[in-house]
């Protein structure tokens, strides 16, 4: 590494390794092993992936290939068997609000209102803000996801799609460094899914939070992402291929669908999955 690069780029040094500051999330030699009575089951092995700041990455792969395992390891909810995960050069040790998660099921506390659900995180992350300020933050994000009329509705009274909107608001409201999305729209019908994709990308355009999203939907993967990461089938899954999506942002669904490269991208992904 030349001194010239060091002078122009700032970064941190961890264990003697220099991390350039534009890398938000660094997975190196990541390994996950589940011990079973018949011996160890290796889900992930030698998985390397670097995700840049302000990048939106979607991860696609067959069911059971270990996508969710990888995401929950980044979230800190699942212990790492080998290798390393670092956020801005700092190794991940357990879960924390710097990595917001949107789960597959909305996972709202059903006994709380939409506002209370968002406030639960906001209160934790902004303990020094006044009560009104915190409420304003929560309301702002609920407004952004189109729930201005449902602040005081109990989560259990909301539809699946509305609940996932609250889930999105909750994740953005804690201002995480990385947003982890585990197939957040997998349980929704295609119409609601489209709506929520639009909402997600609209907020994301504004906040530019580094996002890693798992999906099964090829079109969703292309529409949202800067890069689509394809994972090989397990066991011993790793990164199979990475596809750069060069559509300019902000994107609209229409412009993406009409873009001449769209079907090339789509074919690339489908060829990989059907391989």
């Amino acid at each position, binding site marked *: 590494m030349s001194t010239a690069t060091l002078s122009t780029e700032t970064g941190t040094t961890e264990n003697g390794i220099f991390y350039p500051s534009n890398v938000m999330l660094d997975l190196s030699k990541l390994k996950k092993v589940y011990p079973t009575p018949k011996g160890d089951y290796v889900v992930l092995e030698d998985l390397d992936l670097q995700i840049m700041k302000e990048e939106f990455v979607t991860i696609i792969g067959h069911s059971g290939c270990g996508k969710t395992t990888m995401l929950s390891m980044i979230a800190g909810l699942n212990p790492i068997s080998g290798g390393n995960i670092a956020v801005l050069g700092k190794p991940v040790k357990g879960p924390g609000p710097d*990595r917001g998660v949107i789960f597959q099921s909305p996972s709202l506390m059903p006994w709380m209102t939409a506002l209370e659900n968002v406030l639960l995180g906001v209160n934790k992350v902004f303990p020094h803000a006044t009560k009104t300020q915190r409420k304003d933050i929560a309301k702002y994000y609920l407004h952004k996801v189109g729930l201005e009329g449902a602040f005081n509705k109990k989560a259990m009274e909301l539809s699946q799609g509305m609940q996932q909107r609250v889930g999105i608001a909750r994740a953005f409201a804690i201002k995480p460094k990385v947003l982890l999305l585990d197939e957040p729209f997998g349980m929704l019908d295609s119409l609601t899914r489209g709506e929520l994709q639009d909402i997600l990308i609209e907020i994301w355009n504004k906040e530019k939070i580094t996002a890693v999203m798992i999906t099964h939907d090829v079109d969703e993967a292309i529409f949202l992402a800067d890069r689509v990461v394809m994972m090989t089938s397990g066991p011993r899954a790793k990164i199979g291929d990475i596809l750069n999506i060069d559509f300019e942002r902000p994107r609209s669904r229409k412009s993406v669908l009409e873009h001449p490269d769209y079907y090339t991208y789509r074919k690339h992904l489908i060829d990989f999955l059907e391989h």
Partner: protein
Amino acid sequence: MEQEIVLKKQRQGLSFLKPLIMKLSPKINKGSLVSFLKKSGITLLSVLLFIGLWHMGAKALYDVEAEYKIEKALAERGQEAADAERACIASGDSSCQPNTLPSPSQVWASLQSLIADHQVITADKAAFVEKMAATNAKLIAQGKDAIVYTGRASFLDIIFTSIKTVFAGFLLALLIAVPIGIIIGLSPSLRSAFNWFIQVFKPVSPVVWYLLVFMIVKTLYIGDSSDNAFVISFISVGLCAMWATLVNTAMGVSSVDKDYINVAKVLKLGTFQKVFKVILPSSLPLIFTGLRITLSVAWMVLIAIELLAQSQGLGLFVWEEFQNGANDSNSKIIVAMFVIGIIGFLLDRFMLTVQNMVSFNKNEAV
């Protein structure tokens, strides 16, 4: 889905009163009226059928007993005595009535006599209070205890004592079982440490609990001449009934949905917030299921415990009537049986309503 939830809701709690309320409301829609009539018609029919079968059964038993009495008179004292016995039974004279399962009409008569008795005793009590008012005022002025009415308890007083005992026991169970259940539920090691304790004491019979409590309370009350039957019975009831709540609370707390725990982890909530904002609210439905079982168990064991503790409640009432063996004793026992059943039913419905109020998932509570 939505419709299913609504349907389930209607079947729960005090909603069985709904058709009645709907009927009393001015807006009667024809369909609901028909279904109401149909539903209540079937219920009424089953009640009538029950009373009819009971009546016939009681009649058959009565005849067997009467026949036996006449046969016995014939064998022991000859034809004349047998005829006299037959005439006596036919005349309805209370001195020679066969003593067996009472008929519905006898039970009804006993209920009325118990109510009349209550009115007599109430009047008596009022008169006593009035008569003693001046004396008592003087006694209190002198710093002495006032003279209180110590006459026989009426049937309603007895019911009231039983309800008081069951609620005191229930409260005791709640205060012991819920906090311990939460603590056990939060810690797997405490759970396994306490498991043997729960498994061993849960199946212990009410009678044994009573004896245990009696041993302890008796010693604690040495030198105190006041009546400790109430204390002994409510503590026994509480100890007997608390296990369902203890087990359910521990289970509810330890089996909170993993998603909620993950959310709490991601948000890095502190222990206090995690317990009070996530774990407790999500285990409330199970805690209340436990409390509901506890209340019904409390009511069930109460009768046996009151009998043993000589506490002036329904249990003792039933036992005393049985020992008494008077002509209307059997029918009074049956009256008490219905009263016990109906109060138990109402208590359960009451708890179910409370349970539904705190339950965030309407499908869960059954």
